[in-house]
C-alpha cells in the first residue's frame, strides 16, 4: 500500500501544479527588429577596465558606452565597410581642437547627451572616466599609456561641458588612443554611489552592471549564455541605430553555429572557422554570405625563444623559416583565408608598409645547410606549443610544421596549451618553438614592433628577443615627426626582423563574419567585435 501511496502522492503534486496555473502569455517579440548574433564565447565582464576582462567583452563595452571621439568609416576596394584609422570623428564630444603645439586637446561635450538613467553627461564624468582608466592598472592603464595618457593630472574638466587633455610631448597616437575601447565614458554619479572605501572605482559593481550612456542599454547578461541589449532611443551621439534589440547567444560548437546559420535561425555568426568561410566564398553552399577583412597589423607567426638553445643562433631560426611549409599551411590549415607572408621580394624591404611578406620560401636544402653551419647537421629535438583555443587552425599548422621539420632532422612533439593558460605559458618565455598570433589595435608598424619585438620584453615578445639597435630604431620612430626619417627607421627595423628572424610570419589573418543575405551595414573594426549601431536588417 505504501508504494501506491507514494506514487499517488507524486501524481497529486503534478496535478496541483497544473491547477495553480494562471494565465500569463509570454510577450511575443518580432523577429524582424531583433538581431540574433552567435558567438563562440561571450563577455566575461561588462567593465572594460575590469581585471581579467577578455576581448569578448569589448562587444558589450563598445555598443553600450560612448567614447569622446571615434574613427570614421571607409569603403574598401571590394565594397566592404571598414573603420578608417586616419579619420577621427566626434562622438560624445560635439567638437574638438588641438593646441598649435600639439601638446593638448580640448573637447566640447554634447549638451543634450544623457546617460541611461537620464542624468546629463558632463565633463566631470569624462574626467572621472579617464582618471579611472589610468589609475586602475592592468590592461586599461597600459592601453592609455600607449597614447601618452598616464596621469590624472593630464585631464581637466574646464567647465561642465569642456574637457582638456594635456600631453608631455606631441604624440601621434594620443588622439587615436582616445577612440579605442578603453576610454569609455562612465556615469560617475552612479558609479560613485556603488563605490566603497576599499573600492573607490566601483570595480566590483561595474563587472555586472552598466553605468553607460551609449546607443544600447543592457537588458540581460547571463555569463556563459547570452547578452541582450536594447536600443537607447534617446541616444544623441550619432544617427539612431536601426536594430532595436540584439541577442548574443554563446554557442561553443562551430558545427552548431554553422547549422544555425544555414537554417536561418541566426542573423550573424562572428567566430567563423576558415573552412566555412572558404566554402561559402567558393559558392559551394550559398545559404548565407560571409564578409572577410584582413585584420590590420595582425600576424600569425612561429616564434622562437632566442634565449634558449639552439634558437639563440640566428642561423637556426633562419633554418626553421626555410623549412616552414608556407604553401601547405596556407592551403590546408586555413583554406586560403589569410594573406601569405612568405615569398616576398628579395633583399631589403622596399617600403615601410606593414605587414609585408618576408623574402623567405620553403627550401629544405637551404634549411639543412643553415642547420649544418650552425652546428646541428643532424638536427635536434624540441617542442611545438600551440593554443588549444585556436586549435582549429594551429593544430594542422603544427602538424604540417612537424612533418616538414622532421625532414631536416628536427624531431618535435606538439604541446597543446588550454586557451586560458596560453598567455601565462607565453609569459614564461620557455616554450622554445610556438605558434601564436599578435595584433595591434593602432595601425602603425612601430606600435607592432614596440609590443612584439622591443627589448622591454612585453608578453607579446614571446621570443624574449632583445636587440639594442632595433630598440633604438623603434623608440626613435615612435615620436618621429619627419615622414622620410620615419620611413627609413621603419624599413630599418623590418630588415632586422628579417635578418634575425626571431619570428617567422605565416600569414596576416582575415576576420570572417557570416551573415544572412538581408544584413547590411556590417563594418570591420580594429577591435574585431561587432558594432551593432551600423547594422540594418532588410
Amino acid at each position, binding site marked *: 500500500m505504501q508504494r501506491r501511496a507514494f506514487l499517488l502522492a507524486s501524481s497529486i503534486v503534478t496535478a496541483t501544479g497544473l491547477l495553480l496555473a494562471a494565465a500569463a502569455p509570454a510577450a511575443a517579440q518580432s523577429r524582424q527588429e531583433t538581431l540574433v548574433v552567435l558567438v563562440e564565447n561571450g563577455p566575461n565582464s561588462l567593465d572594460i577596465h575590469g581585471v581579467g576582462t577578455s576581448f569578448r567583452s569589448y562587444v558589450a563595452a563598445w555598443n553600450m558606452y560612448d567614447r569622446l571621439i571615434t574613427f570614421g568609416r571607409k569603403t574598401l576596394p571590394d565594397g566592404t565597410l571598414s573603420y578608417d584609422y586616419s579619420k577621427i570623428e566626434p562622438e560624445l564630444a560635439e567638437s574638438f581642437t588641438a593646441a598649435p603645439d600639439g601638446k593638448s586637446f580640448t573637447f566640447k561635450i554634447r549638451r543634450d547627451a544623457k546617460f541611461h538613467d537620464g542624468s546629463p553627461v558632463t565633463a566631470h564624468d569624462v574626467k572621472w572616466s579617464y582618471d579611472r582608466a589610468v589609475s586602475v592598472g592592468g590592461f586599461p592603464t597600459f592601453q592609455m599609456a600607449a597614447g601618452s595618457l598616464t596621469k590624472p593630472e593630464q585631464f581637466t574638466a574646464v567647465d561642465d561641458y569642456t574637457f582638456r587633455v594635456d600631453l608631455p610631448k606631441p604624440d601621434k597616437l594620443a588622439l587615436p588612443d582616445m577612440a579605442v575601447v578603453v576610454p569609455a565614458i562612465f556615469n560617475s554619479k552612479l558609479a560613485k554611489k556603488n563605490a566603497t572605501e576599499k573600492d573607490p572605482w566601483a570595480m566590483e559593481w561595474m563587472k555586472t552592471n552598466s553605468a553607460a550612456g551609449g546607443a544600447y542599454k543592457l537588458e540581460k547578461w547571463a555569463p556563459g549564455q547570452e547578452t541582450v541589449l536594447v536600443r537607447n532611443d534617446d541616444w544623441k551621439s550619432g544617427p539612431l541605430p536601426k536594430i532595436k534589440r540584439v541577442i548574443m547567444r554563446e554557442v561553443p560548437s562551430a558545427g552548431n553555429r554553422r547549422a544555425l546559420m544555414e*537554417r536561418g535561425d541566426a542573423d550573424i555568426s562572428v567566430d567563423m572557422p576558415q573552412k566555412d568561410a572558404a566554402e561559402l566564398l567558393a559558392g559551394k553552399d550559398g545559404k548565407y554570405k560571409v564578409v572577410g577583412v584582413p585584420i590590420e597589423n595582425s600576424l600569425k607567426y612561429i616564434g622562437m625563444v632566442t634565449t634558449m638553445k639552439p634558437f639563440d643562433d640566428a642561423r637556426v631560426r633562419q633554418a626553421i623559416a626555410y623549412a616552414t611549409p608556407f604553401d601547405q599551411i596556407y592551403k590546408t590549415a586555413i583554406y586560403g583565408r589569410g594573406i601569405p607572408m612568405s615569398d616576398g621580394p628579395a633583399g631589403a624591404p622596399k617600403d615601410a608598409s606593414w605587414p609585408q611578406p618576408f623574402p623567405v620560401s620553403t627550401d629544405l636544402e637551404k634549411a639543412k645547410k643553415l642547420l649544418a653551419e650552425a652546428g646541428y647537421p643532424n638536427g635536434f629535438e624540441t617542442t611545438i606549443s600551440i593554443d588549444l583555443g585556436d586549435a582549429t587552425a594551429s593544430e594542422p599548422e603544427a602538424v604540417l610544421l612537424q612533418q616538414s621539420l622532421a625532414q631536416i632532422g628536427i624531431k618535435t612533439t606538439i604541446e597543446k596549451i588550454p586557451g586560458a593558460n596560453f598567455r601565462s*605559458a607565453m*609569459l614564461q618565455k620557455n616554450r622554445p618553438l610556438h605558434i601564436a598570433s599578435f595584433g595591434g589595435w593602432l595601425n602603425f608598424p612601430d606600435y607592432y614592433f614596440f609590443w612584439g619585438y622591443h627589448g622591454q620584453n612585453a608578453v607579446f615578445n614571446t621570443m624574449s628577443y632583445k636587440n639594442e639597435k632595433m630598440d633604438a630604431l623603434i623608440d626613435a620612430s615612435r615620436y618621429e615627426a619627419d615622414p622620410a626619417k620615419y620611413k627609413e627607421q621603419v624599413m630599418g627595423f623590418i630588415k632586422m626582423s628579417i635578418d634575425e628572424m626571431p619570428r617567422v610570419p605565416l600569414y596576416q589573418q582575415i576576420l570572417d563574419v557570416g551573415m544572412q543575405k538581408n544584413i547590411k551595414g556590417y563594418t570591420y573594426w580594429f577591435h574585431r567585435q561587432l558594432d551593432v549601431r551600423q547594422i540594418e536588417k532588410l
Partner: protein
Amino acid sequence: MLLLIGKRLLSAIPSVIGVLVVTFLLTRALPGDPAAYFAGPAATPQAIAEIRKSLGLDKSLPEQFVVYVKDLARGDLGNSIATGRPVLEEVRSRLPASLELTLLGLVVSVGIAVPLGVLAATRPGSWIDHSCRVITTAGVSLPAFFTGLLLIYVLYYLLGWAPAPLGRLDIFNSAPRDITGLYLVDSLLVGDLETFWAALKQLLLPAFTLAVFTLAPIARMTRASMLEVLSSDFIRTARASGLSPGKVVYAYAFRNAMLPVVTTLGMVFSFLLGANVLVEKVFSWPGIGTFAIEALIASDYAPIQGFVLTMALMYVLLNLAIDVLYIVIDPRVGFEA
C-alpha cells in the same frame, strides 16, 4: 528514522572532507596561473605579483586551505574569474538546468529501458531478449557527445524536426518566473503552456542523448530482477491459481521486481549528473557541467571547488534519499549505517 538519517549524514562527513582536500590539491596542481590570466595581456611581472597577492595565492598551500575552509564556513564559495560572479550564485542558477536535463533524461531512459527489460525477461533466450541486449548495449557504447552531435545533424540540420541546439529556451521565449528553477515546473506553476512546450522541445534531444547512454544498466537490472521474481514461489502460486499471464507479470511480478531497479536508478542518476558535462557542451546547455569544464580548462579554482563540493553533497543526499525510499517501499529492509 530521523536518528538513522542523522547517523548516515555523520558517516558521510569524512568523505566530504576527503573530497574537499583532494579537490583543493588538484586545483593547485593545475598548470595555469590565475594571476597571469587576471593581469591581462600587457601585464608586467610586478602587476602579476600584486594580483597574486590580492588573490591570496602568494600564501603557502596550508594557509590557502585554511582561508578556503574559513570562507566555506561562511557560505562563501569564492568568485569565478571567467564570469566574475560569486560561485554560489552561478551554481544556484545553473544547477536547476542540469537537474532538469538529467531528470528528464532519466525519465526517458526508464520509459524505454523498463519495458525492454520486462519484455526480455518474459522471453529469456529468445531473439527479443538478444535484441534488447544488443540495442541497450549499443547505446552505452557510443560516446555521448558523438550521439548528441549525430542527433543534432539528423534531427535539426537535415530534417528540421528538433529546435536549434541553443540551450534551455528558443531565442524568442523568455524564461518563466524563477520558482524552482526547473523551467518545466515553473512554466506549469504560472500556467504558461507556451513556455512549457518551448522548454520541453529544447530538452528532448539532449535528454534523449543522455537516456541512450543509460538504457543498458536499467534494462539489465529490470531483466535480472524480473527473472528472479518470476521464478519465485508466490508467482508460481499465482500462476497455479489460474490468474492470466498478463496479470501475473504486470500486477504482481513487476511491482516486486522494482525494488532493485530503484536502487540502480539512484546510481544511474548520480553517474549521469557527472557524465552530462559533455552533453551540455554539445547542446550549449547552460548547466553546471559546462561551467566546470570551462573552469578546469581555465584553471579557475573557485568554480571547480564549488562544483565538486556541490556534486559530492548531492551524491551524499541522493544516497540517503535512496535508503529512505527503500524503507518506504519495503519496510522489511533494515537500515544500517
